[in-house]
């Protein structure tokens, strides 16, 4: 043993043996081989047509025509190359960069899409429609997951997103019908979501009841309450109570004619525009303002916040309430945008998907937004593929994006860290 090496470069001798986890290279490798063999070599022979612009668009972009088998092979080789790069990095003891799994996932999903479309009875799909539809379906999810981000960042687990969505949807339909204005309905939905959240806040913050249990109970409560009122009041008097009308689509001239991104960004209802604003505002607020610094401090180390003169429980209460209002707006989208009436259980578990999106998005508003888009894509793919007639049973199609998500969360994204005090009530002293 040499004292010199001890003092100068301790631990350095042990480093060459260090290997990063081989989870990422291995996962990528297996998926790439699957893609190459099943989507490429055994791929369908038809040529898939992927339309980029709609016939009515000002700028016409020719559709992409991709032969199924050749395209599958090319994409498979591309995936294989990415996997090989990851393995190469692994042999050099370097971790794969963050973008690699993400790029891989995008190409993989595209390969799956090509495989399905080229194998369908009617091998033609509108990419623009697919993406625009995904965004539309993602809107409630985005609002829901933003609500979750706000609550968890301040230290309260919000399982009640589902209840907030449902409460918002019901109230929006009822109030919009009674007042005759969907905009008033939208506001009322925010109020309903906030009310559900306040119950969560009071019980979990003031009375220290387990947050998960309060959340689950609230979901059941709201579901029962809206179901009962729907059955006894709304359904028998549809004209009086359940014809809210829709929020107008407000296209922005010229911009909305841009292929693909036009309809996504510039041809939305108020709620759709509000979604983009909400994501940006929540992100900016959380990470760039005094309010956000305090919120995050309360969610990470409430005692530290308290000793700096911040009222922990008040901060929690108002943030949870705000989160509920945001989820309520998301709920209104079901009854004021997607369809124009309320039905029982209209949210259909989207609140729980929003919860998954927030975790997949690593408690970050932008991450939650992107994750919600992925789930929106999943919902949309299911319905579109049903229309073009793919031989794969639709139930399996609906499963696929979730499988990708599980792979992504478990194998590619790596460990994510929730706010340290999330779910833990704060008691002084």
């Amino acid at each position, binding site marked *: 043993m040499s004292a010199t090496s001890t003092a100068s470069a301790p*631990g350095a001798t042990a480093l060459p043996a260090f290997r990063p986890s081989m989870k990422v290279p291995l996962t990528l490798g297996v998926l790439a081989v699957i893609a190459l063999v099943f989507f490429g070599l055994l791929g369908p022979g038809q040529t898939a047509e992927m339309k980029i612009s709609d016939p009515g668009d000002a700028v016409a972009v020719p559709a992409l025509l991709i032969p199924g088998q050749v395209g599958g092979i090319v994409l498979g080789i591309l995936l294989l190359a990415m996997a090989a790069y990851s393995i190469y990095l692994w042999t050099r003891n370097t971790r794969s960069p963050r973008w690699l799994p993400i790029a891989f996932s995008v190409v993989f999903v595209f390969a799956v899409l090509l495989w399905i479309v080229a194998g369908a009875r009617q091998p033609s799909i509108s990419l623009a429609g697919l993406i625009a539809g995904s965004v539309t379906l993602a809107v409630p999810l985005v609002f829901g997951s933003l609500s979750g981000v706000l609550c968890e960042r301040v230290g309260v687990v919000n399982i009640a997103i589902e209840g907030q969505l449902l409460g918002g949807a019901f109230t929006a339909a009822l109030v919009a019908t009674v007042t005759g204005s969907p905009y008033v309905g939208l506001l009322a939905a925010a109020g309903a979501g906030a009310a559900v959240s306040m119950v969560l806040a009071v019980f979990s913050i003031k009375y220290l009841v387990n947050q998960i249990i309060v959340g689950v109970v609230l979901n059941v409560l709201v579901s029962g309450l809206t179901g009962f009122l729907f059955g006894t009041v709304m359904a028998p008097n549809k004209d009086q109570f359940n014809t809210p009308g829709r929020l107008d689509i407000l296209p922005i001239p010229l911009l909305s004619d841009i292929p693909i991104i036009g309809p996504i960004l510039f041809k939305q209802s108020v709620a759709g525009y509000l979604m983009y604003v909400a994501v940006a505002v929540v992100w900016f607020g959380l990470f760039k303002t005094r309010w956000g610094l305090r919120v995050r401090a309360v969610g*990470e180390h409430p005692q*530290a916040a308290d000793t700096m003169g911040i009222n922990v429980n008040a901060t929690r209460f108002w943030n949870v309430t705000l989160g509920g209002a945001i989820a309520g707006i998301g709920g209104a989208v079901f009854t004021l945008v997607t369809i124009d009436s309320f039905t029982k259980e209209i949210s259909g578990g989207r609140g729980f998907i929003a919860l998954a999106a927030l975790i997949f998005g690593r408690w970050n508003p932008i991450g939650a937004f992107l994750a919600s888009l992925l789930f929106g894509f999943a919902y949309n793919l299911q319905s579109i593929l049903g229309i073009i007639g793919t031989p794969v049973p639709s139930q399996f199609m609906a499963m696929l994006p979730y499988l990708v998500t599980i792979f992504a969360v478990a194998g590619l994204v790596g460990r994510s860290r929730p706010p340290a005090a999330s779910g833990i009530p704060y008691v002084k002293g």
Partner: protein
Amino acid sequence: MKLELKGISKAFGTFYANQDIDLVVESAQIHCLLGENGAGKSTLMNVLYGLYEPTAGQILVDDRPVSFRGPADAMAAGIGMVHQHFMLVPVFTVAENVALGAEPTSFGGVLSMDETRTKIREISKKYGFDVDPDALVEDLPVGVQQRVEIIKALVREAKVLILDEPTAVLTPQETDELLDIMRQLKAGGTSIVFISHKLREVQAVSDVITVIRRGKVVGDAPPTASATELASMMVGRPVSLSLDKAPAQPKETTFVVENLTVRAANGTNVVDGISFDIAQGEILAVAGVQGNGQTELTEAILGVQEHVTGSVTLDGKQLLGLPVKEVLRSGVGFVPEDRTVDGLVGPFSVAENLVLDLYDQAPFASGISMKPAKVVENAKAKIEEFDIRTPSAGSAAGTLSGGNQQKVVMARELSRPLRLFIASQPTRGVDVGSIEFLHKRIVAERDVGTPVMIVSTELDEVVELADRIAVLYKGKLVGIVPADTPRDTLGLMMAGVGPEGGSDDK
């Protein structure tokens, strides 16, 4: 600024943590609050900082009565506090932590951190802190985190700074640096309330010492008071601070560690090729700054570490690779470094905790049933023998004071006939009275002929107990030296410099 506490009492239910406390902190003085763990020092300071509302009494700032409804009021009055457990958000940067609660903002509440960064750099420069405003707090060593806490108070222009057990987490060198910082702050006009139970530091830096025992002020003492006097005031009875220890009578060497290496998950060797042996009737103390492989070393011997190579033999039997239960059955007694996490099951009763390793054996069990009567009987004997202060054998172990919890762990581990005794941080967070007792028990175990291995980051303790001292630095053994090695040499060894001076090979 003059700070005065008049007749402060704080009750939790019927229990008075503070009773009728008077205290005057003069301007630009270091005022030490000395007392054992649980004497009520921290409670008093939490009252002063606005975290607790006093049950009775008054706080006066410059002779004007004030009442604090929260820490914000206390900070506004010029009181800053560095808590024993740091109040820093680990995932925030230094600047974000310092800004929190009094954030400089531009229009619309948008943070403008540059102002905070500048202030941090100014204070760092003034006091010689080496703190990067943009470093993440969780990446900083404990000593630097403490400086961030001090900066937090200084940025808010604290005139009185409360330091709650600030040296508990520091190395000897860091402690010396902190004492220097305290002197500098005092020279700059800041008063300091220094809470501690470590006599050496208190004597080194205080202007006035107020001793607190069981929630009451016992009296003031000048810093010239001897350690024995101070300790006796703290404990309330005469205490002997030096351990009467006969010279070791080493017999046969029965415990041998050869080339032990533990690899951590990140691929570094946290224990790196360590070899040593301990004879029967001898205490080997392992010294070193916290986090230099001590935890992994003891856990590797016990068998709870993974990726261990080398050899550990006890009485000629290889221990590596055996399940923990087998290792314990081979006669190893183990006191873990963190009793609340690894040493005790807090909600279990004292009696149950005393048989955690023997619950499935006679006389405490027969077949699949336990014998509660025997467990309680055993507990009563141990409570008596180890002077464990507990309301009853059925009380939850977690409700006892630190010293008494440690006695429970020690009593359990010493209740079997041992072939090897390992104690990690045997007196961390333990009051002076209990330290004396625990040290005596450890020496007694040596004297019956057990090889004893002590791991401690407290140099005082190492010097006191050891027959030989092994020093660890970054997972390697810097050297094994006799117990009478000068403290300076040991201090250097703890920083990785070899015992023969310079950086020679040995």
